[in-house]
């Protein structure tokens, strides 16, 4: 069997070539055009001397693009060629882009219009020898030795270029997520894992050719994998809204007659706060999929009012186990986790196994709280170049490989799983995973101090609105620290406020007491 992620698009390009595949406000492609663009990119990649397999794994192709038709073409072109795609956020600071480039040994880089301004001299000097970028001629004119530039729009069609044969164990994509040490970690996901998710989700969500799906997610976040590949599996169309226009999402969905909504819960919270989420605002939505954060009861109620004809589902799954592994259908009365104001994680689907374990990795019985562990075909093959972390987070228990999620959870007597917190300092900010230690590390460096800590703040209706940083010092230059943090980290990891605190509170383990810091903010003392 060929596990190539592009095979559905290939099939639709023959059977339904005139159907819409992907659209933005500036560009639309039918399946025929989408396949044509992808195979041209594929042929360009495959004829490059840099496109070589290493240790049995395919070449890696960076995608410096997001939320555009060009980003979708880049992903599809890389997939068509049988490569591993590695999204690199076009809004990331130069430092972060250089770190990711240094970690993943790319064979080629595909740049969308939104990524061009990131192609600085420093980034270019760290780039692979093949770059597909708008305005390639201007880059070629710089005379950089050893790098070939091509313009995606000017590549010749390659009619006979069929999707490369891809094994199930072949890595389809690598996503970088926050790491406690200050360096992001790359999560590698196999083609068989993606196939299990896409097949299950497309069937469960009853995705159909007439569906029109919204894309509100960055390519660096795996909700985008679900949006893209479930939509294309069904022969439906994906409608992309750039990040800067995300708060126009309700109008966009209505104008484009969209039928499927997919986002993190905190986005609809923000839409509600600007009053864009009015009752009956989206009668055309038939299905709404939420994942990435706890889905609270008050958001579900607001969403049910806004989308009177929608089925609502909550999905759960860490990046390390491929997009999602459990599903919970939400109907009246809204199901809630005992003692909490948010919906359950639900139950796993075929190919996934969930269990609750204690600190020694022993399985715990129903009704007991412990760490949520996941196993099955959707398990990542591990973090890039991190054998110690892999041994710790992907242990063998009773002869089977598991992923220890760090989420605290319990399973009730009906088999439903419930999220109850974290065992560490990983938090979600607008659905983005943040290890607070990574923020701390950079705060210490930037503020040139030994002690610094970040906390989530404020939290409104159970939803994290942002981060506040504390620095163990008498006085600081807040604006300078924030500006320096922006040069190092993605925007969602940068505290909106940084405060000086001479006497930082410590807990009995000698660590900065984040709860005490949050209480200081709560009490208004600071």
């Amino acid at each position, binding site marked *: 069997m060929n596990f190539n992620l592009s095979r559905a698009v290939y099939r639709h390009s023959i059977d339904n070539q005139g159907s819409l595949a992907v659209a933005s406000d500036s560009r639309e492609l039918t399946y025929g055009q989408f396949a044509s663009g992808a195979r041209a990119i594929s042929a360009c990649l495959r004829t490059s001397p840099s496109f070589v397999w290493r240790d049995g794994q395919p070449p890696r192709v960076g995608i410096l693009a997001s939320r555009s038709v060009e980003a979708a073409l880049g992903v599809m072109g890389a997939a068509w060629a049988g490569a591993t795609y590695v999204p690199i956020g076009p809004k990331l600071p130069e430092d972060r882009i250089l770190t990711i480039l240094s970690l993943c040994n790319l064979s080629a880089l595909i740049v969308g219009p939104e990524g061009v301004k990131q192609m600085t001299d420093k980034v270019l000097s760290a780039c692979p020898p093949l770059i597909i970028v708008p305005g390639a001629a201007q880059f070629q004119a710089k005379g950089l030795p050893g790098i070939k530039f091509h313009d995606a729009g000017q590549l010749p069609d390659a009619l006979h270029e069929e999707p490369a044969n891809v094994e199930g164990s072949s890595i389809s994509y690598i996503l970088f997520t926050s790491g406690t040490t200050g360096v992001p970690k790359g999560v590698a996901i196999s083609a068989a894992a993606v196939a299990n998710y896409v097949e299950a989700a497309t069937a469960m969500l009853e995705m159909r050719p007439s569906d029109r799906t919204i894309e509100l997610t960055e390519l660096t976040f795996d909700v985008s994998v679900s949006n893209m590949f479930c939509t294309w599996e069904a022969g439906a169309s994906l409608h992309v809204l750039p990040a*800067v226009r995300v708060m126009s999402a309700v109008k966009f969905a209505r104008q484009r007659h969209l039928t499927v909504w997919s986002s993190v819960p905190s986005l609809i919270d923000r839409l509600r706060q*600007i009053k*864009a989420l009015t009752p009956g605002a989206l009668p055309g939505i038939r299905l709404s999929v939420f994942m990435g954060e706890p889905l609270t009861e008050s958001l579900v109620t607001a969403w049910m009012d806004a989308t009177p004809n929608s089925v609502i589902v909550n999905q759960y799954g860490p990046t390390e186990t491929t997009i999602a592994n459990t599903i919970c259908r939400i109907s009246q009365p809204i199901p809630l986790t005992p003692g909490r104001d948010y919906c359950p994680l639900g139950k796993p689907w075929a190919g996934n196994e969930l269990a609750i374990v204690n600190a020694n990795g022993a399985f715990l019985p129903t009704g007991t709280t412990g760490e949520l562990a996941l196993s099955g075909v959707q398990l990542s093959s591990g973090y890039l170049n991190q054998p110690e972390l892999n041994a710790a987070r992907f242990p063998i228990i009773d002869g089977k490989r598991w992923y220890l999620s760090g989420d605290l959870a319990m399973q009730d007597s009906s088999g439903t799983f419930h999220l109850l917190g974290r065992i560490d300092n990983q938090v979600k900010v607008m659905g983005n995973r943040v290890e607070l230690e990574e923020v701390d590390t950079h705060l210490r460096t930037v503020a040139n101090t030994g002690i610094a800590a970040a906390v989530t703040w404020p939290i409104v209706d159970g939803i994290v609105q942002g981060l506040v940083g504390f620095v163990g010092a008498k006085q600081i230059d807040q*604006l300078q620290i924030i500006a320096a943090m922006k040069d190092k980290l993605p925007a969602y990891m940068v505290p909106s406020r940084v405060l000086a605190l001479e006497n930082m509170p410590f807990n009995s383990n000698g660590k900065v007491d984040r709860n005490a810091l949050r209480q200081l903010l709560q009490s208004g003392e600071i």
Partner: protein
Amino acid sequence: MDTEKKNKLRTFIKSYLQEHGDAGELKDDDSLFISARLDSLAMITLISFLEQTFGVNFGDVDFDVELIDSVNEIELFLDGG
């Protein structure tokens, strides 16, 4: 919109920018959100300011970022253009 109101609006946006480490110039035509100079949290703050200060109800609006993307666009929007 009279000059006093427009000044109030400019002052509000300028002080928000400054509080968030942006001491740059603000022209009436400068894009605030499409340019990514301000984020969605800033938008929530701005909308709440517009509601409280100018009495507009965003619940009645078919909201689009472009309606409030610059000082001039906000003026046009508030004047019913």
